[in-house]
């Protein structure tokens, strides 16, 4: 396992980039352009988009984060409780400080 200095800290507000992906990604469509909070650091691992093409130990590594979103932010017609949240894992290249990119 590689140790990397993560760009974001637990508690940081981050926005998932709404970027073009070619061929494969693990970043779910429903998180694109959404803003959430970093709640956990995950071990650094190969960039998933590289790993999908057979790149393994010698590939580019990236920090991973668990990001927590408010369900009412993700789904405009959400009918559950206001406090409901959803957590998902994002690699660093998909995140930018909240408020930076176009929303």
């Amino acid at each position, binding site marked *: 396992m590689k140790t990397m200095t993560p760009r974001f800290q637990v508690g940081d507000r981050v926005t998932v980039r709404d970027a073009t992906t070619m061929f494969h990604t*693990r970043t779910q469509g429903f998180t694109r352009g959404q803003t959430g909070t970093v709640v956990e650091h995950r071990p650094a691992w190969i960039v998933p988009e590289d*790993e999908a093409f057979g790149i393994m130990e010698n590939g580019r590594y990236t920090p991973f984060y668990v990001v927590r979103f408010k369900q009412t932010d993700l789904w405009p017609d959400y009918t559950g409780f206001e406090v409901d949240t959803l957590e998902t894992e994002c690699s660093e290249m998909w995140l930018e400080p909240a408020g930076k990119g176009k929303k």
Partner: protein
Amino acid sequence: MATTSTQYDQLQRQASNLSPADRLPLDSPYEISNELYDALRKVLHDVGGQPDTPVPFTEKGEEDWEMNTYLTCECLGWRGVWNSEERRRRENDLGATQYFGLPYYARWITVAAKALVDRGLITTDELGQKIDEVRTRLERKRS
């Protein structure tokens, strides 16, 4: 498997029976919009937020071929041939018809075979011969 034109018609009809009756036929058009290109590129397993109907819950035990497929794929990972992310990418690359048409582990074994062929570890004729050999053995056992 030999494919006569009658069989080909049957195969095509079977596949087209899976498509909605009212649809936009695509036959390698000269031009498409950027929006359609985005839609066609969509990663198939990314279904979060997609409308769907309830699916009945059924208890289904794994069959031998399913567990064998799982173990084969894990061993290929253990021996450094591929990884599970590549498997998922290859499953998506099957395209919607095969992705949703094949049983779960049939998707796995199909893309495992393609990965081995891509890496030159087996050839398609070796694979075909083995399939024929197994088919003959099983047919003999049944008769």
